[in-house]
């Protein structure tokens, strides 16, 4: 089978196995993607029957849209903060629940469960927490930090978003880290213990380097999800207060579906795609080089 002589036969076999998936992939990813790029060269409100060609005008509009670049910069800050916190918290949680403490399976489930709640619902739950729960606690104990709703203040609303994101994804990344921790060979750790290496040194010099493949995955996932965030942004702050927490995706959505400027919206979406693709490719490339073998 493997050494096919006949090319037609070989292609036939390949099509048999990859064809259906390929077809679905083309239909739902490639075609919309290319059509999206095609749309960036036209001016369209989504309804009108005429769709005039405008060349690169939409891209020019993107570069002149200061609000878009503000939202991209805000997204980058948000991604930086949330990627760092998600991975730190997730790793600590994973480390804790693999130490063999009592009821660790329960904790694993508990930490993972926020991820089972959809972003929208989660946003609304936390909106209530920030607006009502925290403020009443702040009132009761006179804590300055919680005296006013976090969502009414530009800086705190940003951190509220980061906090909720970390809460949502830390458990998910924890599961990946647990798998990584489990696959660290026990024999070398045992050997290190016999040689008198402390737990801390084992963690820094042995466990962490061996966990790089897990970090590649978790950083990639949290980067990509951070850049594309919409649901939590929408449900928790709605871009407010005063439009200060409009992330890039929300800006693109508003451009296309509130302003009905599909061309510019698509162009901005493409620019955003380009940024995310560049950042994640660079990240994967750089972290791949840090991989070691036991």
């Amino acid at each position: 089978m493997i050494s096919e002589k006949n090319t037609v036969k070989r292609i036939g076999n390949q099509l048999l196995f990859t064809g259906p998936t390929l077809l679905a992939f083309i239909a739902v990813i490639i075609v919309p993607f290319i059509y999206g790029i095609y749309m960036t060269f036209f001016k369209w409100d989504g309804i009108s029957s005429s769709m005039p060609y405008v060349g690169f005008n939409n891209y020019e509009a993107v570069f002149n849209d200061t609000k878009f670049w503000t939202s991209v910069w805000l997204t980058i800050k948000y991604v930086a903060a949330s990627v760092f916190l998600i991975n730190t918290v997730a790793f600590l949680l994973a480390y804790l629940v693999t130490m063999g403490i009592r009821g660790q399976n329960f904790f694993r489930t508990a930490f993972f469960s926020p991820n089972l709640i959809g972003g929208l619902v989660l946003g609304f739950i936390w909106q209530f927490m920030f607006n009502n729960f925290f403020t009443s606690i702040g009132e009761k104990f006179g804590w300055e930090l919680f005296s006013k709703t976090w969502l009414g203040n530009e800086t705190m609303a940003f951190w509220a978003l980061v906090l909720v994101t970390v809460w949502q994804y830390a458990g998910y990344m924890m599961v990946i880290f647990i798998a990584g921790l489990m696959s660290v060979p026990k024999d070398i750790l045992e050997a290190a213990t016999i040689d008198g290496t402390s737990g801390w040194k084992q963690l820094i010099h042995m466990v962490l380097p061996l966990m790089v493949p897990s970090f590649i995955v978790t950083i990639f996932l949290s980067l990509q999800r951070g850049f594309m965030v919409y649901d939590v942004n929408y449900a928790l702050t709605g871009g407010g207060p005063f439009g200060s927490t409009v992330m890039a995706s929300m800006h693109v959505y508003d451009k296309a579906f509130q302003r009905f400027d599909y061309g510019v919206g698509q162009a901005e979406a493409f620019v955003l795609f380009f940024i995310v693709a560049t950042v994640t490719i660079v990240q994967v490339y750089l972290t791949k080089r840090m991989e070691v073998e036991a």
Partner: protein
Amino acid sequence: MKKLSSLMLVLILALVVSACGGNNANNASNANEGTNASTNTGSDSDAKEVKITILNSKSEIHTQMTNAAETFSKAHPNIKVEVISTNQDQSPVEKASALYASGTPATLAMLDAGDIEKFADKALDLSGEKWVAELAQPNEINGKTLAFPFAVEGYGLIYNKEVLDEVAGGAFDPATINTTSALEELLQKIEAAGKTPLYIGSMDWSLGNHFLAIAYAAQPDTDVKGFLEQLKGGSADLVNNATYQGLLDTFDVLKKYNGGKNDPMAVNYEQSTAAVATGSAAITFNGNWLITELLKSNPEGEYGFIPVPVSNDPATKANSAVAIGATKQMFIDNEKSTEEQQAAAKQFLNWLVYEDAGQQFLVNEANVIPAFKNITLELNGSLAVAINEYNLAGNSIEFAGNFVPGDHWKVLGASMQKYLADVTDRNGLAAEIEDYWKSVQ
């Protein structure tokens, strides 16, 4: 083996071809639907069955609308009416354009007034309809009546009658509040009486598309469209615009007496409404749609409207007028719908305007203020009655939110929130408004 794989290849190719062709076949069957329907019912020679769909964008009246459709179908057995409603947070345009994109537009689509223009080339010209003569205000786009005004709505300062009667020591007359200083005196009196004078809801749609829009509608020497053209062209100078400054003077007064001024962004729709309904606060800024929410907290309450003053001159028209407009409009699709469907849709609109059951539905089920002079049913709820009085007396300015782009409420609503929370000053706000309008093509 060779045979098998080439067979598979053929199969897959066939699959690809049929998948590509499937779309066309679908379209064709859609286009034929009308003809199919007529051949099916051809045996039943008297009445051809027509099926029309209504896209309802007032999601809160979905049940009532479905019931009305049933009542209508009972009176017209050959017409089947299906009602589709948008979700609470879904933009009606999004839904309508999705229906167009899938080749199955609604025969009758209800949209926000400002969006009808986008569908102008798809809408059936209704200028020849009988009800056009009954309109309280003309409803034309480029000289043609393209849409049926479904609901008239208005907004201003909503007050609790009981509270203000008590403060005024007799029946309170909203016409006495026709300047900013008169409003301030009133607010002082309420405060002296130990009540919270008012709550300003911090909702961006309310501040942006309703409050700020008064500045567009109350311009003394131009109408809304004219002023918006000036803003787009960059020739409107807000810093030196008396109406804009006057409106913000009023806003400053409102801010001063705002019950939530310590944390103004925390005042939401439900909270401001509940405070007025229970009488713990006297006034809030909102529209006649608030009645449902008000009645939830206090089914016995009576409410009225005070206009938002924009100057200290009692003669200024806007000082004694509330903003009123037909905010929900329905148009008949002229692209995919058959003539029979269009005729049936027209019949439904006539039913709403002229038949008792239709009028009952509009006024008592859907609780809207109809745009037609011939409907004399007593309106439901004190706010609707108040708006209707202002409307019939000619004391109205335009509902300028009907003429602004779809993201106006969000972008300039955010700017108004900044001003509400003292994050920006008047000139900063003016600059943001001017920048926004210059970005609109």
